[in-house]
């Protein structure tokens, strides 16, 4: 047991080498990029909309597909009102307030880890980020689930409460609905990978240095 804690202490004391620091820096900067990229995309296809109605979920906003002849978000809300679903409105998503705030925090912590070069700080960051990612996903899932279950009882078309798909494909009435992560999420997924890589490189370097 003592050996284990000692090993852990050694690990947490491991300095992060230059390559690792650069990787953390890159990872943090990449995270900034997620502000400009949609994290998730939900698309709905039907005979009436062969080109698909699209909604992109950003860290701070909802963005429906927009062309000269259609505003997809407006259209989805217009269609959803028949089953008594509340209109998708940015104001209803507290996520759009705290997610960007947390991302900002994670970026700052990333910069701190890169500057200080301490393994413990890096592990903190990784754990925090994993928790944040998991919680965000759950939060969105919960919100969509709420939308699908909080249906107006006076709606013209009565449907049993449902959970819109958060990952994958679902047939809903005349629509084929697809929900998949988008570029923002892919970039976000690279973040922990780079951090792990930084850890691995630093641990390997320190072992080499000792032997």
């Amino acid at each position, binding site marked *: 047991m003592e050996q284990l804690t000692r090993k852990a202490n050694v690990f947490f004391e491991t300095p992060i080498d230059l390559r690792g620091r650069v990787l953390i820096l890159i990872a943090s900067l990449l995270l900034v990029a997620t502000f400009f990229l949609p994290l998730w995309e939900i698309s709905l296809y039907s005979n009436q909309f062969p080109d698909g109605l699209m909604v992109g979920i950003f860290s701070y906003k909802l963005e429906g597909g927009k062309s000269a*002849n*259609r*505003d997809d978000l407006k259209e989805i809300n*217009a269609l959803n*009102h*028949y089953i008594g679903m509340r209109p998708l409105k940015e104001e209803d998503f507290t996520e759009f307030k705290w997610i960007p705030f947390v991302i900002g925090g994670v970026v700052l912590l990333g910069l701190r880890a890169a500057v200080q070069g301490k393994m413990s700080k890096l592990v903190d960051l990784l754990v925090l980020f994993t928790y944040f990612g998991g919680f965000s996903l759950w939060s969105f899932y919960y919100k969509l689930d709420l939308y699908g279950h909080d249906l107006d009882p006076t709606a*013209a078309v009565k449907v049993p409460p449902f959970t819109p798909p958060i990952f994958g494909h679902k047939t809903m009435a005349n629509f084929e609905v697809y929900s998949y992560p988008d570029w923002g999420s892919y970039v976000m997924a690279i973040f922990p990978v780079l951090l792990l890589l930084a850890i691995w490189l630093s641990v390997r370097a320190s072992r080499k240095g000792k032997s």
Partner: protein
Amino acid sequence: MKKTLVIIGALFLAALLLYSCGGEKKGRTAGRTDVRSDVQEAAVKTYVAPGDLDKYYLFKSGGHSGQVYIYGVPSMRHIATIPVFSPYPATGYGFDKESKEMLGGFTWGDAHHPALSETNGDYDGRWLFINDNANNRMARIDLRDFKTKQILGPMPNISGNHGSTFVTENTDYILAASRFSIPIPKGTYEKLEDYATKYKGVVAGVSIDPKNGAMALSWQVLMPPFDYDLGDAGKGPSAEWAFWTCYNSERATGKLEVTSTQKDRDYIAAVNWKVAEKAVKDGKAKSIGGAQVLDPKDVEGLVFLLPVAKSPHGVDVSPDGKYVIGSGKLQSITTVFNFEKMQTAIQKKDFSGNEDGIPVLNYDAIKDAEVNVGLGPLHTQFDDKGNAYTSLFVESAVAKWKLGTWEVVDKIPVAYNIGHLCASEGDTKHPTGEYVVALNKLSHGRHLSVGPSQPEASQLIDIAGEKMSLLYDAFTEPEPHYAQMIKADKLKPIEVYSKEENKHPKAIWDVKDAKIVRNGKNVEVYLIAVRSSFEPAKIEVNKGDKVTIYVTNIEQTTDELHGIGLAEYNINVVVDPGETKTIEFVADKPGVFPYYCTNFCSALHQEMQGYLLVK
């Protein structure tokens, strides 16, 4: 793969047509058997598979229906109707305040000659102009949303605006002219016996604002009381000129069929609009009826007359602008004037007479050829290979002839009595030479019988090859007088008005803002139409109240139109996605009146309704 399917589909259709035609021959009594096509070839060339799009837009004037009809070429399918000079409940045109004001109290017009706007002599796809032969108006249709945006007129001094609306090569002006000379200004009485001296013809230019297409009265030219018929603007070297044919140079009245056909020649009037523009600027115009009118006696070089075979109809300028082609519909020749020779004759003052001081150019000095096209030549269009196509009314045929050598190289019969014809971009500097549409005046026997009131017939002719070939018959409501055919990709239409571009001061976008505001006897209703309800669904007023409804369709998706029909109040307005319209009426009938969505919108369209209660 898709292409193969299309070909297989087309062949299948062709086979089907072949089969049905074979079966039909036995029992067929009506129809002209010589006006036939190679069925298989024609079917493949005109078949536009489901989901595929036509290559050209064809805008046909609707004559005394007052409207413009849109067809796709080569399928010849009628796609839509644009209401212009007559109310059209199908789109709510003429029922809302805005379009009612534009129509100015008229319930019909005689839409004759559509003209697409041009840049450097080629269609630019911005606007379509059309004239009203009856009420002396001009209309501008915006091709961004295919809506009539402006109606100018009734214009002062112009009576029977037939020789209209031809555009100059950069849409500086659209032309207007009097077919029925009258004493001017309007409101003046003169005895018909004094027609030859006291009645006046007028030819005119209406200026176009290059930014927004707004039409405004510009110059008018006082002319002898002839009947000005058709026009065309010059191109290239002749760009500064406008041409009109005229009949009745006899200045006769009464039975014109006889009285106006006594002389062998009538005229083409050639007006230099640059000179007209300058003369107005120099203050040489007199204000008559509110228009700036130029007397040719006061302005040298403004107008010249070209003698042409009697009772001419079309005057058409070749794509290179070098030839002016006039067709006298009682003869078998079409006359080609050389623009350069015309200029020389003007410089040398080679005149053979004058009419009210307007010089008549020496026919032999300016004529290049008399082309023996056939009986009753009417109107000429062009292709990209130096050929001209002239419609022959009496002969019921289209003659193809070569510019320069003046030989007739092909002729195709049509059924029956072709009037105008329209070639693909055929009146521009760069015709595409793919199709000609023969706009026939009579259609008997070409369609399933629909009783005595008959549609008109249009025939699509392939002109891409050496020989012309008939492709398709199509029908239209009375009565197209001319058409414009433009490549589909030149148009970039919208299908939804964005919230941002809605400038109606009373537009609202949230059902929470829907309201009824009473101010004495004036009741203003801010109404929203959105799937599938009206907000408010109840409007309560007192008998005699003046009711104004501002109805906004807040949809932002294509094809989500809503209508609002008010029963027994003679109101039906259709609002497009993102549009706001104003409805005004006096609630003079007491009782309860339903209003409902007239333009299908959704599964609960039927439920989209409300009540007007008049106490």
